Structures are given as C-alpha cells and as structure tokens.
C-alpha cells in the first residue's frame, strides 16, 4: 500500500508546484522583461543618438574654430591686397606686410605678387627680405588659385619632415592689387586645438584630406611627421568616419585608446576636424542606464521568484495538506483534521474532508457495533437494535425467555475417530443448516461449543409467542438436521440430534470483556433447558411445562412424565413435541 501510495502522492506534486511557479513567474517576468528590454533598447538608441549629435556639434564647433584661426590670417592678408601696384606704392605694400607679420604670428613668410603675376616683395621672419626679384609667379598654383577663388589654401607640407606649414594665397578685389602668398606655420593651431576638451578626457584633432595630421593637442605627434603609427591610427579613424557617412566612427586614437570620434569638415583648406571621446567615458551614461534597467529587471525577477514561490506554495500547500489528510483518513485515522484556512474553495474542500472523516468514523463505529451485535443477534435483529438505537435492550435485566439447547448425539465418539477434515466438514454442514433457521426465527445465539448450541428467544428483543416460535424453530432444526443425518449415516457416522426447550425468567445481558462480549442468559431456566436437551433422545424435542402450556394445542405433545434432572431437587415434567406429519419413530434411534 505505502510504496505506490507515496509514488502517487509525492511524484506528481512537484510538477504541480513547478507549473504554478512557472506560470506565475512568467506572468510577472515576461512583461517586466519586455518592458525592460524595450526601455533599455530605446534608451540606448536615444542616448547613442544624443551622443552622436553631441559629438557632431563638438566637431562642427571645432571645425569652426579651426576655420576661424585661418580666417583670422586671411583677414590679415586681405589688408595687403587693398592697394594697387603702382609706382611709388612699393613702400606702402612693404609696410602692410610688416604690419601683417606683427599681427599674425603664424605667418612665417609673405610674398607679394603684382597684378601681372610678378613677384614684388618677399618678407620672411627668418630669411632676408627680397625686393623686386622679378620672378614670374603667374603659373604658381597659389596665384592661379587665388585668382580663381580670392582665397586659396595650399597643401600641408612638412618643414624638415617635421613642422607642418601651409601656403595661403589671397587675391585683391581688383586684379591690379595683386596677390599675397603667405606661408603659415600650422603649429600655432595648437593654441586653438589644445583648448578644446570633449567631455572629461576627450579632445580634438585635425587631419587634411590625405590623412596627414595637421593639429593635435599632443604637438609631438604632429611634429613626428609622416609614417608615424599613432598618426596612422588617426588616419584609420578618418577612413572609418568617411566610410560611415555622417555617422560617428569608433576606433583607436593616437594613444591606442578606444574612442568614439565625430568629424566635421573645415571647408577652406578641405581639412577634417575630429573630436574624440574615450568610448568608456562617452558611454558612461548609456552604461548607467543599462545597468539601472538591468538592476531593475533583476530586482523584478527576484520579486517575481518570491511572489511565484509564495503563490505556488499557497496553491499547492493546501493541496498537499488535503492529500495528506486523505491518506490519513484512508488509513483509518478519522480523528485527523485537515487545517486549511485559506478562505477559498480549498478551505471548503478541507471542511468537506473533515466532515467526511467524521461521518466515516460514525459509520465505521456503527458497522463495528452491528458486527458485534451480529455475533449473537440475527442480522435483521442486529440492524433493528442498532438502527433503533435501542442498545439499552442489551443491558442486563431479568426477562421471560425461552432457552433452546441442541446438540448432536454420538459426536464425541465420532470426533475421536474421524479425521479433522471430516469433523470440520460435518460441523460446517451442521451449522450452515442451523444458522439459516436461527436467522429466520431471529433467535439470539448466546454460545456454541463444538456441536452444542444455546439460543434465546424474547431477549434481547421481545417477540410474540416466544415458546411457540421456539418450538417451531426447534422442529425446523430437527427437520434440517434429519436431512443431514441421512447423508452422514450413509457415510457410516452414527450421529443423532436432540433439542431441549425451557421457558422462564432469567437474567439476560452481556458478559465478557472489551471486544469479546457475548449476550447470554443466566438462571435455572438455562440449566433446565440444558438438562432437557441432555435427556432428549435422538430426534426428540423436549419442552418443559411452561413451554407446553404456552403452545397449547398447536402441536402434539407427548408427556414423558416426570424426570429427575441433575441439578434439580425435584423431578421435572417433560414433554416431547411431535411434529404433525413426521413420524418420530421412522428414524432409527441413535446410539
């Protein structure tokens, strides 16, 4: 019982818990995850966009500053092309140039070319001035460029492979004003570029179209010239930014730090201004947001676990209790109470279980009582006694009863010689035959011992005409046993049957001890009936005077006179009952 029971009960319980747990957990976590993921994703996108826009605006601002640096120079150069080249103007032009050199420290050398493209003056900070060299500069790209577009920016060149310079040319409003060509020392952009800070540790730098580093806060990097690995990384960043269109680019900066860079063109010289910010720093905000979302998700998930666990336990706990209760009740422990106070259907179910247990207990007790009663009462009487709740009937009292004794003649001899199987087989037939009759007549079986029986009528349940009923029963029993006797005798058993009846007052009640109580009658009447039976010959039904008086004319009675009976001081009148149509003499007398 226990092994399959355990498997059947604990086995499926976990899955139920898991199911509840799973469903409840999912019910909380799935929306939470969906919300968290979308929030995280959109937050990330917004922040990325914001970062991109911020860097772009920084890059544009940087480009503006670089262009501003160059514009300052070209504005100064404009002053040198205000006057036409006429005779006597040489000195005026020269003064313009000298003033320019004072005003624009980045200008290293200035060359004035007249309207015909002839070099008229060259003033340098380092070299001696050259006046009216007469060199034809009309095919100089600077001259051609300035003539075409007023302002011309030359390529970035490295002085001694190190210091970056650029030639800038400016043309006057009128062709006769000529053209001013200036060599600009680009190292001075450092003042501009080093003042730009992006975020906490980000900075800005400038590359020309070919990727040559023009300006960087680390001036040494600029001065290292071409083929520098650090500058090459910036060139790669430029490629990435160009390839990525207008987007920001990620890559290594000069210090090999991973950065996010944005680019903006410096239109004049066709340079590109970059701003860079270490990725880790730029994404701090984004990371914080993602962390926050993740943390919220985690807390939510933990909460969901807790909630799901508690709810699932709340669901399955009572079920487990119910199951345990059912097992206890099934095992007969009706006193077991299922204690569930969830206030829902499960509590109702538990109450049903408890009620059922009480009812089962009552029912079992009743059936046990009936079973006990049936030990000595006919089933219908037992039901009657039990059902009518008249157990007081069983209480000891004095009652007028008919006592019937019967036993087999010659059984002692038979049992001494016969095999146990035969003895038991015979008794089986015997009691089966008598039992049916006893039940039919609702007689009370007080005891039986081997082949002997003691029966009572009118106790504990009174019945009308108990003596008559007793005699009828006795005759039926005699007839039933006679039918058996024929078979037994055919098998060679020399067995007979006798019955004795007596009527009188006796003390009736239950005797015995807990669980083994019998109903019996005590009194001389019992002894009398017993003696009657003992003195009865095979096939005889002997009755006493009281019985005989009661049955009156119903049966033929043969007075057998007064017999002395053991235990009785006086001899007792005995009558034999003869059934109407049965010849008592037809049966051969037993030994």
């Amino acid at each position, binding site marked *: 019982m226990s092994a399959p029971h355990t498997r059947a009960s604990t086995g499926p319980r976990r899955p139920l818990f898991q199911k509840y747990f799973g469903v409840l957990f999912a019910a909380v976590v799935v929306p939470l995850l969906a919300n968290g993921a979308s929030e995280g994703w959109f937050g990330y996108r917004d922040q990325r966009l914001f970062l991109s826009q911020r860097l772009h605006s920084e890059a544009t601002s940087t480009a503006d500053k670089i262009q501003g640096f160059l514009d300052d120079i070209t504005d100064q150069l404009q002053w040198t092309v205000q006057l036409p080249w006429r005779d006597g103007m040489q*000195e005026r032009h020269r003064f313009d140039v000298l003033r320019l050199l*004072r005003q624009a420290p980045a200008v290293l050398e200035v060359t004035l070319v007249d309207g015909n493209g002839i070099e008229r003056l060259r003033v340098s900070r380092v070299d001696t001035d050259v006046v009216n060299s007469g060199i034809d500069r009309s095919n100089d790209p600077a001259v051609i460029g300035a003539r075409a577009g007023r302002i011309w920016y030359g390529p970035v060149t490295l002085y001694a492979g190190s*210091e970056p310079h650029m030639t800038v040319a400016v043309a006057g409003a009128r062709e006769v004003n000529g053209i001013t060509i200036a060599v600009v020392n680009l190292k001075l952009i450092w003042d501009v570029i080093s003042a730009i800070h992006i975020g906490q540790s980000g900075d800005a730098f400038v590359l020309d179209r070919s990727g040559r580093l023009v300006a960087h806060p680390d001036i*040494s990097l600029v001065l290292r*010239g071409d083929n520098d690995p650090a500058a090459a990384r910036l060139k790669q960043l430029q490629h990435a930014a160009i390839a990525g269109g207008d987007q920001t680019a990620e890559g290594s900066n000069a210090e090999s730090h991973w950065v996010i860079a944005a680019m903006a063109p410096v239109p004049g010289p066709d340079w590109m201004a970059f701003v860079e910010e270490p990725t880790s720093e730029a994404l701090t905000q984004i990371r914080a947001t993602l962390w926050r979302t993740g943390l919220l998700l985690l807390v939510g998930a933990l909460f969901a676990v807790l909630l799901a666990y508690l709810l699932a336990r709340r669901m399955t706990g009572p079920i487990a209790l119910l199951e345990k209760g059912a097992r206890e009740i099934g095992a007969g422990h009706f006193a077991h109470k299922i204690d569930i106070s969830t206030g829902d259907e499960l509590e109702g179910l538990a109450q049903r279980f408890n009620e059922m247990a009480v009812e089962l207990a009552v029912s079992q007790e009743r059936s046990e009582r009936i079973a006990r009663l049936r030990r000595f009462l006919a089933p219908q009487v037992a039901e009657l006694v039990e059902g009518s709740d008249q157990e007081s009937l069983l209480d000891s009292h004095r009652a007028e009863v008919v006592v019937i004794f019967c036993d087999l003649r010659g059984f002692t001899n038979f049992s001494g010689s016969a095999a146990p199987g035969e003895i038991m087989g015979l008794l089986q037939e015997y009691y089966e035959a008598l039992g049916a009759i006893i039940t039919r007549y609702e007689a009370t079986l007080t005891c039986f011992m081997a082949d002997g029986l003691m029966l009572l009528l009118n106790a504990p349940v009174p019945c009308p005409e108990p003596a008559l009923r007793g005699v009828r029963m006795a005759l039926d029993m005699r007839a039933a046993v006679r039918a058996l006797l024929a078979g037994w005798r055919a098998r060679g058993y020399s067995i007979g049957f006798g019955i004795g009846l007596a009527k009188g007052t006796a003390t009736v009640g239950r005797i015995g001890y807990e669980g083994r109580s019998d109903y019996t009658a005590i009194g001389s009447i019992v002894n009398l009936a017993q003696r009657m039976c003992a003195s009865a010959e095979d096939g005889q039904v002997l009755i006493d005077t009281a019985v005989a008086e009661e049955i009156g004319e119903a049966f033929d009675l043969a007075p057998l006179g007064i017999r002395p009976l053991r235990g009785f001081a006086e001899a007792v009148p005995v009558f034999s009952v003869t059934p109407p149509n049965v010849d008592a003499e037809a049966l051969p007398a037993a030994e």
Partner: protein
Amino acid sequence: MSFGSRYISEPATTKPGYPLTIFGRILLTIAFALIQTGAFAQPAKIYRVGLVAVGTPDTGILGAGMARDFAQRGYVVDGNVVFERRAAQGKPERLPGLIDELVAKHVDVIITQGYPAAMAAKERAGNTPIVVTLSGDPVATGLAASLAHPGGNITGVSEVASELSAKRLALLKEAVPDVRVVAVLWNADDFGMSLRYQAAEVEAKRAGMTIVPLGVHAPDDFDTAFAEMTKKPPDAILMVTDILTVLNRKRVIDFAAEHRLPAIYEYASLTQDGGLMSYGPGVAAIFDRAAGLADRILKGANPADLPLELPTRFELAINLKTAKALDLTIPESILVRADDVIE
C-alpha cells in the same frame, strides 16, 4: 597603509568562530575601500629635474622662469618637483663634473642651456633623458638624428636651420642704412656660433658690406677685439650670442656706447641691458617649450618619440634710449615690426 593593515590582520588573529562585531566589519570594509582607492598609497613621486647652464646662476634656465613654466603644468616646485641647478660660470670644462653630479642625484631629466652643456650631457648622462635649449640646430651639430625623430635620449628646442645672422645683418642695415663695415664678435670655439658667423659673412657679401671677423676664445680675447675695433673702427657690431659673449656683454655694450657704434644682438635681454637692438627667437617661449617636453618625459614619454621643436616666435627689440645716445633715428619700417621697444 599600516593603519589599513592593522585592521586587515585583526580577523586573521581572532580565534576561529570568534564573531566579528558589526562595527568591526564596517571598519574592515572602510579599510579595504581606502586601500583600494589609494588613500594609503605611497605619496606621489617627487621628480628631480637637473638644470645645467654654461653661464651664471639665476639666469636663463636657472632663473625663475623655469619654475613658473613647471608650476603652470601643475607641478609644485620644491613639492613634487625639485630642481637641481648647476651653473658652469662660463667654464665649459666644469660641465662634465656637473652632469656627473646630476646623474649621481638620479635626476629624472636634465634640461640644458647652450651647446656645450648639451654636448656634455649627451656624453655623460647615460640614459637620463636630456632636453636641450639654445644649442643651435641639434641636427646640424649631430646631437640628434632629425627633428621628427631625434633618437637616443635627447629632445628639446632647436633653432631654425637657416641662421638668423643674415637677417640680423639686414635689420641692422635697415636700421642704420649707412653701415658698411660690420665687426662680428663670436665664440670661435663654438661650432654652432661659427656657423652663425659664416651666415653673416654670406649676407654681407650679398648686401655689399664688409665683415670684420672678431672670433674670441676666452674673456681676455675681448680686449684684443676691442683694440682691433679701436684701431680700425667698424660702422657697427654684430654679436653672436653664446655664453662667452653673454658673460662679457657688459663690456661689449659699454664699448659700443663709448665708441658710438650701433650693435645688434640675438636676444631681447641684451637690448634691455643697453644694446641697440636684437632679433631672435623668444627665449621665454623656448624655455616654456623645454619645460613642456620635460613634463612629457616625467610623465613617461620616451624622449626619442618627442620631436625637436622649432621656435615659432621671433622678437625684434629696439632700445630707443641707446639710439638716442647714438643720435640715431630708427626708421618706421623697423619700429613697425618691433615687438619690444625700450624708450
């Protein structure tokens, strides 16, 4: 650190199962946090910077300017940076010994002023990084491989490859147009200075002027030079500035004033001392850049990766008091470009 470790060792010495009080746990946590944030870490490193000049103490890189340049870069002078100043007092033969002293002091970087100091440092400083100033063109003198990649352990501020002597001569000519004969004073023992003299010679030839070469080797030679100029007076003096000439600047300026000779020098300081005019790179800016390079080296940069820098600003200084004393009228074309006019 010991404060922190006292609290770290405590739980180790407690008997097993001894319950650490909440207060103890908090202390432990704080101690760990402090150690991790470096609150108990070693004090910041103190940098030692060697400053070596051929000249006198308290001038040039040995002056107050260098301290300002370092302070500007966040250093606390005599706090986290300590200067070891060494002046050769015009005696270049002392330089090797001074360099040895600095090496013995385990300086983190040596900043030199003047070519002899740079040369001595290169020869004796071993692996100690060197930042050179006012040493001519280090590429031309062989101190460094190139501007972009100096190599070795030397970087610093170079001077422009084209010698400015020609420019000075031209400016002198413009200021005093009737100059024909110019006496050039220079330290003939200094290779860099000799290059400058040669540049002046070339320009003089081009401009139709005559040069009187007055190379000096020792302070005593100045008397010889003065005697020469007294015997055959030139129209003007060009003094190539190195430590030898600078240490004797007073005598030159006085001689020029006495003999009413216009003179041009290299640095504005000489104009302030009474010289008529000067043209050359801004020395303060050069020292500032040298401090910048030294700063990079202190922060871990390899001097071989730090290109030599060229001066970006050139200063023209005029002393109008001297001009007045000489009865000279400085033309507008000079005044208009003068960065420093002393009136």
